[in-house]
């Protein structure tokens, strides 16, 4: 009976067994009644405030200059500022992130070291730290290491843009890969939280930091074997750790395979990319220093300083400047009559609809892209000029074939992974007139490969180009 009464008064579908006893039932009734009173009280309070507000409205009509108006203004200000504070606290509250920074230095060190120690237990879910301090610092360190890489690889002046690239690449990878992996983990029914994926990916970047730093500091001139070894060891260990974590938290062979495969591929390829995209210059520099036999065209141009192949820039710098590349071409490399060259490029430009802006430049620097396309090596054409021309408009269309004096070897990364030299030139040289070639170059052009010859007295630049044309990726000639 008591229980039945209780159910009626409570009006819930759930029968609270503790209230089945007589004594307890009474207590619950009382508590419910009191809470009901509270509820009534609150409602009364709300109506009271609304009443006061109603009372104020007619007063508005009477005039705001009086004391009433002033007090109302004060109230509006107070409410407004309170609401603003609430909104601010809600959206800009860094306290949301505070729990993820709650670590001790020793723990961070331990986690750093344990990223290279895979745990073989996959039957039970492995413990993953959900912390953001470590990964954030690691990403910043990676950016610093990339800067070091870029600087030691070549002489660059536009540090700002390099920083932007490095920032974008590192943070983009961290967040992008984490998002992708979390998405796949979600599909594959993995028992892992987003913040854990973020943390895991971030910590695994320690391998990248270590490998890149050591790779740059101790890079051997002739081969990449040292890098590959470190790539396999450090990259492999950290990948293995991540893979085992994912495996321990996923069930089902296919799901495991998909998730771990994606993770491993992305992680290892990113390390390769970072190394080759920002590192080519060292190689080229060394190769250039070792190759003492200049090719024919080079020797003809040793007295031409390259300041800029960009038509506008060059004219700004020195209106009387002779186009260095054009001279080179004239000096004997050219087997193609200039007219034909110009015609070809004009035609290509016209196709691209770029003729207007680049009329002069096309004529003036048929060879300009010589610089740009450092990576001409890929070109199937035997004739250097054609390559140059093909690439030329491509590069120029980009707008800044060469802030030569500036030269950001590192910039290749913009828009295109390290194969810039490779991918780009392939497009160009295979004669894909190109919006594609053009656009690609355009994207890359910010700091495009052509720039690398920058800053270099002419012969070296051309020599380097020639060297590269021999089939070396990497036009990063930088210096």
């Amino acid at each position, binding site marked *: 009976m008591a229980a039945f009464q209780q159910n009626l008064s409570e009006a819930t579908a759930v029968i609270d067994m503790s209230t089945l006893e007589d004594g307890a039932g009474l207590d619950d009734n009382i508590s419910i009644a009191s809470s009901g009173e509270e509820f009534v009280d609150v409602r009364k309070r709300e109506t009271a405030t609304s009443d006061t507000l109603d009372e104020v409205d007619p007063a508005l009509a009477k005039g705001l200059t009086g004391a009433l108006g002033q007090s109302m203004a004060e109230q509006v200000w107070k409410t407004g500022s309170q609401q603003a504070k609430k909104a601010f606290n809600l959206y800009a509250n*860094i306290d949301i*992130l*505070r729990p*993820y*920074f709650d*670590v*001790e*230095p020793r723990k*961070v060190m331990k986690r750093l070291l344990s990223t290279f120690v895979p745990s073989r237990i996959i039957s039970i879910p492995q413990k993953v730290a959900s912390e953001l*301090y470590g990964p*954030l*610092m690691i990403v*910043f*360190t990676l*950016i*610093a290491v990339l*800067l*070091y890489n870029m*600087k030691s690889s070549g*002489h*660059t*002046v*536009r*540090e*700002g*843009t390099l*920083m*932007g690239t490095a920032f974008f690449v590192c943070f983009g990878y961290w967040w992008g890969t984490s998002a992708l992996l979390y998405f796949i983990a979600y599909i594959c029914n993995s028992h892992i939280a987003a913040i854990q994926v973020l943390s895991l990916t971030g910590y695994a970047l320690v391998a990248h930091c270590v490998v890149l730093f050591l790779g740059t500091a101790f890079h051997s001139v002739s081969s990449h074997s040292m890098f590959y070894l470190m790539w396999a060891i450090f990259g492999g260990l950290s990948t293995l750790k991540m893979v085992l974590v994912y495996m321990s938290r996923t069930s089902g062979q296919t799901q495991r395979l998909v998730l771990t495969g994606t993770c491993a591929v992305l992680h290892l390829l990113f390390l390769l990319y970072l190394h080759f995209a920002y590192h080519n210059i060292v190689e080229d520099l060394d190769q250039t220093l070792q190759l003492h036999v200049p090719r024919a065209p080079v020797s003809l141009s040793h007295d031409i*300083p390259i*300041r*800029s192949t960009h038509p506008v*820039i060059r004219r*700004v*710098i020195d209106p009387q400047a002779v186009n260095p590349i054009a001279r080179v071409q004239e000096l004997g490399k050219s087997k193609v009559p200039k007219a034909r060259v110009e015609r070809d490029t004009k035609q290509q430009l016209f196709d691209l609809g770029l003729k207007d802006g680049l009329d002069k430049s096309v004529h003036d620097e048929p060879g300009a892209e010589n610089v740009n396309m450092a990576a001409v090596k890929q070109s199937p054409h035997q004739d250097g000029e054609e390559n140059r021309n093909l690439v030329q408009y491509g590069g120029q269309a980009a707008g800044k074939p060469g*802030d030569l*004096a*500036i030269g950001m070897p590192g910039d290749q990364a913009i828009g295109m992974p390290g194969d810039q030299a490779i991918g780009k030139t392939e497009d160009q040289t295979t004669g894909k007139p190109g919006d594609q070639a053009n656009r690609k170059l355009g994207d890359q052009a910010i700091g495009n490969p052509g720039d690398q010859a920058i*800053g*270099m*007295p002419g012969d070296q630049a051309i020599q380097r180009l020639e060297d590269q044309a021999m089939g070396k990726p990497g036009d990063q000639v930088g210096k």
Partner: protein
Amino acid sequence: MAATSVDVSDVTDQVPLDVEGDITVPGAPPEEDEEDFSTLDEPVKETILRDLKAVGKKFVHVLNPLKGSRSLLREWDLWGPLVLCVMVALLLQGDNAADTGAPQFAEVFVILWVGAVVVTLNSQLLGGQLSFFQSVCVLGYCVLPLSIALIVCRIILAASATQTIVLFAIRFVTVLLGFAWSTFAAMAFLGDSQPVNRKALAVYPIFLFYFIISWMIISHTHSDT
């Protein structure tokens, strides 16, 4: 049981209060408030001179980071950091105006300010006691040694056309000194505001920030060909 829990809360309540007490010296503020009320009517020259003096005093504090000096923290202002940042960004520009110009300046400027903001956020998230602008102010002022090093580097670069290894070594050592000084000064001011066991966590981003700035300085050489 209740007594022990109250005791613990008393202790934890007192700790932040003590820290607040140290930073805000009870004697000073009322005087400043009186001044504030009357500064609207004073001639502009006085205001400017006063601000300049305050900035200069803070520069001196940075160059001699003593543990006791708290004026950097108490009366924070962003004039000094702004001046330093603009100067550094201008000096780090490339020489070739046609090629460089605005973007480069903007990049350095953005890096300095965004870096200061990020380091501040990090120290706050780690449980630091300073307010946002105080930290930004300190980090900005502590760029002073590095900017002095930058000026010295520029002088060295401008002095001789050919850069020998000796000159490079001089530049390197100067920048290294500036970097160490900046980091040490920043640590002296910001270190006490962090929980003791997390000092290293807060110091590392500061180290990285000044390291990147030093890197920009040391790698900046004249680009005229």
